[in-house]
């Protein structure tokens, strides 16, 4: 078999990079037809490597470049990106910006058109591609009207249509709901089985990496491990150390048994078998303790802060996004709002601080109907951190950014200083006051965005996808921060797709589907109903599925270990 990718001594440093190289001395060969997954923490150089594969580096993104990349024998340095595109297709993380046509068919046709494919052939390819990416029947839809998962599948289809021999996807599932993620991986698997296509996927999701032939772990611009996915993924210690989310099942078994790492089960099904063969048991007493702790926590909630009654919302374009929602949020709660892309969850939370007003029904915040209040007033009680921190950061320094909210509310200079200090301390960003927020990493910018909400000292904090685009370590840090805020008395409302985050941190869950709340209750009760969740395109984390199979619902590896007898 020939070599699809051959990289020799590749080193790259961005033009404005302060220290070190983005990637250093990479040597990598990928055979034709291989399915490779690349993982690693933020800043490991994964995207840099992907952009080197089709020549975006060095042609489009400038910097110091040495070494060489051969794609099917062609040196990327010698051909423009558009020529390389015929050999290798690249799918980006940001699917909004890579779709630009009026409808699905034209989006798919764009690539082949550039390569001068005949019209009849394009027609044929559109049909094939739509089938592969499961978008049949969506031919005439405008891309912005598709759901997130459909958009990303279309982005993949638009690359497939040019029939490149290699496809590289850069974190294609980051913004997707769990089923959207699975859809992408199912397609990847099918593409791989069909034939000689070489597939390179950069991913955060450990559970999905199991499908690959080969797993590459990167750290700080180097390749750290390269080999069989099962072997690497069961190396729980390595995963923990470099900050990749370890698979929950092997992690659990490595703690409760003395199995060698190659003997560890990987999936909930394998786990169940192992659990029985090892004669492990569930400790019923401990499980009751856990349930009682849940009840105790619930008793300690304070007054009702937000009350939603029969809420309906219809947008000016006539689309009804909410069809009668009832919710009560009490002080001290930690509520996660789940639902697939386009279910109406963002529309719902925008009612909590008065950004949107009900078409029908009522939203009462702190005893006041939002219709009779203003965002400015409600803002004192409810803070809202938007999904993308770059949609709100504007100041030259971190201090100015965080001081914005108290300043606008006319507090004294000393009061502002006090609040900024307190907010930066809460997000663990003290000492960054004079930094330019735009020079920080995504995780840090996310923290600054949260701090700039905290400085208004709101009782309720709404967070829209606070962990998107962060690696596992950063996600953990972010969630620990949010947990601390909750423990200090802030009420948390969080929209998210990341199921393990919900499972380990949220007290309560509301699942929104097609404008209605279809499941609502404590996290444990909701996660027990795996099948109903699946209907709304949500999938519980491995450890929860595993414990459900044992007849109990345990939300984290730690809880599972606590409830295991017979070790």
């Amino acid at each position, binding site marked *: 078999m020939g070599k699809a990718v051959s990289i020799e001594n590749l080193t790259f440093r961005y033009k404005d990079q302060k220290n070190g190289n983005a990637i250093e001395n990479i040597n990598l060969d990928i055979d034709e037809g291989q399915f490779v997954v690349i993982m690693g923490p933020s800043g490991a150089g994964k995207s840099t490597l992907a952009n080197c594969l089709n020549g975006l580096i060095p042609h489009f993104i400038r910097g110091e470049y040495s070494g060489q990349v051969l794609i099917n024998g062609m040196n990327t340095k010698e051909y423009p990106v558009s020529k390389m595109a015929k050999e290798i297709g690249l799918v980006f993380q940001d699917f909004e910006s890579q779709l*630009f046509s009026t409808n699905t068919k034209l989006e798919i046709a764009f690539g082949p058109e550039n390569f001068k494919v005949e019209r009849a052939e394009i027609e044929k390819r559109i049909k094939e591609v739509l089938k592969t990416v499961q978008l049949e029947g969506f031919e005439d839809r405008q891309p912005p009207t598709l759901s997130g998962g459909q958009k990303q599948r279309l982005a993949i289809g638009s690359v497939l249509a040019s029939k490149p021999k290699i496809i590289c996807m850069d974190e294609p599932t980051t913004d997707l709901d769990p089923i959207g993620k699975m859809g992408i991986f199912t397609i990847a698997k099918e593409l791989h089985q069909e034939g000689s296509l070489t597939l390179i996927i950069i991913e955060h999701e450990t559970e999905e990496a199991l499908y690959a032939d080969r797993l590459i772990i990167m750290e700080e611009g180097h390749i750290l491990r390269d080999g069989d996915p099962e072997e690497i993924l069961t190396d729980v210690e390595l995963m923990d150390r470099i900050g990749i989310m370890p698979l929950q099942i092997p992690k659990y078994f490595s703690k409760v048994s003395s199995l060698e790492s190659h003997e560890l089960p990987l999936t909930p099904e394998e786990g169940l078998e192992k659990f029985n063969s090892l004669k492990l048991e569930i400790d019923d007493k401990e499980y009751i303790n856990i349930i009682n702790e849940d009840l105790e926590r619930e008793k300690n909630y304070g007054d009702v802060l937000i009350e939603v009654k029969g809420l309906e919302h219809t947008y000016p374009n006539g689309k009804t996004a909410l069809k009668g929602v009832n919710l009560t949020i009490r002080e001290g709660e930690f509520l996660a709002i789940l639902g697939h892309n386009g279910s109406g969850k963002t529309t719902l939370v925008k009612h909590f601080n008065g950004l949107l007003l009900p078409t029908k029904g009522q939203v009462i915040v702190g005893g006041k109907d939002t219709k009779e209040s203003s965002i400015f007033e409600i803002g004192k009680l409810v803070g809202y951190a938007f999904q993308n921190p770059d949609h709100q950061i504007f100041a030259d320094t971190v201090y100015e950014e965080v001081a914005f909210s108290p300043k606008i509310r006319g507090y004294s200079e000393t009061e502002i200083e006090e609040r900024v200090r307190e907010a930066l301390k809460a997000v663990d960003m003290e000492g960054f006051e004079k930094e330019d927020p735009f020079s920080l990493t995504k995780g840090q910018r996310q923290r600054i965005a949260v701090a700039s909400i905290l400085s208004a000292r709101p009782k309720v904090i709404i967070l829209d996808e606070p962990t998107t685009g962060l690696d596992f370590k950063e996600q953990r840090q972010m969630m620990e921060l949010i947990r601390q805020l909750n423990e200090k008395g802030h009420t948390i409302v969080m929209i998210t797709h990341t199921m393990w985050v919900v499972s380990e941190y949220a007290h309560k869950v509301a699942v929104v589907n097609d404008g209605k709340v279809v499941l609502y209750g404590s996290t444990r009760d909701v996660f027990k109903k795996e099948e109903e969740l699946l209907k709304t395109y949500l999938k519980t984390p491995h450890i929860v599925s595993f414990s459900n199979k044992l007849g109990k619902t345990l939300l984290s590896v730690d809880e599972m270990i606590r409830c295991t007898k017979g070790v």
Partner: protein
Amino acid sequence: MDMFLYIDKDTFLHRLDPRTKLAVMFGSFVIALLFESLPILLALAVIILLYGHSGKVLSNLKRIRVILFMIGLMSIVIWSITRGGETKLLGPITLEGIIYGITVGIKFNVMIISGMIFLSSTTIEGISLGLVKLKVPYRGAFAFSTAIRLVPMIVATSYTITQAQRSRGLDLDSGSFIQRIKKYVPLIIPTFVSVIRSTNVFSMALESKGFGYDKERTYYMELSFRSVDYVILIITLLLILVSIYAKITFKL
């Protein structure tokens, strides 16, 4: 927020060739610019509205109703005061001034509406392919259609950003003029940053899909210049010629 101005419908107007629609648009510009007579401009406005109505795309005018209204109002206010004339009504305001203001307001609004109808009934690909068929180089045609696409994208981004900053307490509705301008800084900077970032990804995605692989390319979309296109084109040309003739002969 809808990203596109284009309204996807299957109507007579949508089926017209983009070149025909382009000609109608330019025809309406020429006629609107030629005349200062209220009856003629009113007639033109009626024709253009009927034309847009045939494609059921006039609902898009709601999106720009404030702009249309402001142009009309400003024009009437400015001209009624400054135009002068025989029939004095109140202070510097004259009847002739008011009529002239209405005329100029209609003139500009007709052109905007005509442009809006074109963009609402023609796909971006249709526009660029139409331009290519008119011998505009593909890169130029693509750049033009991309610029059109960028406007609603910027609007959508700035809408999100406005919401984010209002959530933080930004109050855009109060304060003096200077104070209000200052308040737009937290909106403008993130908008620029976001637009630059996404256009950057956009251009990388373009090249990665083979844009510029060769000077030539094929087109999946087909344009067909049918007999109805010829009819509309001839009517448009005739109207333009009659207008020019009338302008010269009768000095309307």
